């Protein structure tokens, strides 16, 4: 009897670890997706740099999130002998899983500021943002500033619950991760300025042709596949695993694909970005939508992407290379708000969300992202400069930073 009790506990604990490792590995593989998405979307002379930045950003993020970020967000510190870390097997994989989210921040920024940012300062900015800015908001929504030891809501979440009937709901991070990353990227892009020759003197817009659709597609596929780990393993424990989350992710993705196709006249890049837009937007309410509502949320995200990408690059002329602000910034914010609209029972959803809470939570994220990012990039720019010299940019960061070409053999 006792033995059975123990066996069940063991199975439960092991099942939780299995779920989180499974999810963490999938989201880790999304970072390969970020790398190839960027490698396909830049010019050949910056391909090696794109592939290297992501793995370096990941590594730097791991250290700072291990030492500073995770302790801020969840109040658990690992700087003591393993045997003294509380429930370490679970907490270590929990850290691993949440790191895969945190490390998205520099990976997202990277795509917006590609082809002209200096390597070192970019790493440093990533470290500060993952170590300090991101965990503060994370803590407020999911972490130690959101729930106390007894499981009761505190802080902002308590305020929202009391005033609007529901906490700010962000199941898998449309806002916490994607909006945060996308809106952080915006000031960085503005401070950097567009790539040389991106907008000609005569007013002509001259987007440099990109390197490779197959790499872009490969990156997108890696992201699309890994995303199911992102959303499904957000359950946090095996007993909470939800089939609804899986299907809603799927439906939002295909909604995004089809909208991307229709609203761009079969543009391959828009189709793949549409899939990602859908997946970004669905995270927040993926445990609550009806699948068809999820499809609508995803489709709208894709349309936002197509329109806003044109807007930021052709009207505002900011040169967001991969379109991370329209994709993650707007798509994520839309996802946060959409959960307050489409998850209600009237649309077939499970309800339990408040439009006002979603709006407030999302807006707060945007504000923190803009302010945090502006301070970090402004200061770094003053102190050490964040942009390559014109000659370096012309030569390309592959040779300048890595003494390497993407295809070393090609010069015979």
């Amino acid at each position: 009897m006792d033995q059975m009790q123990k066996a069940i506990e063991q199975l439960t604990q092991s099942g939780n670890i299995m779920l989180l490792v499974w999810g963490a590995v999938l989201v880790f593989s999304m970072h390969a997706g970020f790398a190839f998405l960027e490698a396909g979307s830049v010019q050949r002379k910056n391909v090696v740099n794109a592939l290297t930045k992501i793995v370096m950003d990941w590594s730097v993020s791991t250290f700072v999130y291990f030492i500073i970020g995770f302790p801020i967000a969840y109040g658990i510190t690992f700087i003591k002998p393993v045997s003294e870390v509380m429930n370490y097997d679970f907490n270590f994989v929990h850290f691993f899983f949440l790191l895969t989210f945190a490390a998205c921040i520099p990976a997202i920024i990277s795509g917006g500021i590609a082809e002209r940012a200096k390597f070192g300062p970019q790493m440093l900015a990533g470290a500060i943002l993952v170590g300090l800015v991101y965990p503060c908001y994370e803590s407020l929504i999911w972490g130690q500033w959101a729930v106390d030891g007894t499981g009761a809501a505190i802080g902002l979440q308590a305020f929202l619950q009391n005033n609007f009937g529901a906490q700010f709901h962000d199941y898998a991070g449309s806002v916490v991760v994607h909006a945060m990353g996308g809106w952080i990227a915006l000031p960085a892009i503005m401070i950097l300025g567009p790539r040389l020759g991106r907008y000609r003197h005569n007013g002509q817009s001259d987007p440099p042709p990109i390197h490779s659709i197959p790499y872009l597609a490969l990156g997108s596929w890696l992201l699309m596949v890994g995303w199911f780990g992102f959303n499904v393993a957000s359950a946090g424990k095996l007993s909470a695993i939800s089939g609804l989350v899986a299907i809603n992710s799927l439906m939002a993705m295909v909604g995004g694909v089809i909208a991307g196709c229709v609203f761009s006249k079969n543009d391959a890049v828009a189709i793949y970005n549409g899939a990602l837009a859908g997946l970004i937007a669905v995270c927040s309410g993926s445990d609550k939508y009806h699948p068809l509502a999820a499809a609508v949320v995803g489709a709208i995200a894709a349309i936002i992407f197509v329109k806003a990408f044109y807007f930021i690059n052709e009207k505002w002329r900011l040169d967001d290379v991969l379109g991370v602000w329209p994709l993650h910034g707007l798509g994520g914010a839309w996802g946060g708000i959409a959960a307050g609209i489409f998850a209600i029972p009237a649309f077939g959803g499970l309800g339990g969300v408040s439009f006002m809470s979603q709006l407030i939570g999302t807006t707060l994220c945007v504000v923190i992202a803009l302010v945090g990012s502006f301070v970090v990039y402004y200061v770094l720019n003053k102190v050490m400069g964040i942009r390559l010299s014109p000659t370096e940019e012309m030569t390309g960061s592959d040779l300048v930073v890595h003494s390497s070409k993407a295809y070393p053999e090609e010069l015979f």
Partner: protein
Amino acid sequence: MVRIEAIIRREKFEDVKDALQRIGVIAMTVDEVYGCGHQAGHVEHYRGLESHINLLPKIRITTVVHEVDPDTVVDAICEAAFTGAHGDGKIFIMPLLDAIRVRDRVRGVEAV
């Protein structure tokens, strides 16, 4: 002994090669080039941004001939590469001072 350089459509290359072989021109050097001229380009779009492309992929065949009459070569190429639309290409004929076969250092018309 002249050097004939023909810039043709990519999809006509196999036909032109066959036509040249039939008139006895077997040796040639080929490369991939981009050309612009009267042929209209096209529009590409990526993430919704448009690019107007007017450099189009072409094949350039270079052959040095001596025994076969250059006019025969020109005729063969024109026939095989013909579609009648802009973009069929050009043939340029250039003088040559000398030719050398590396394998045995034979020079002049013998070497071709």
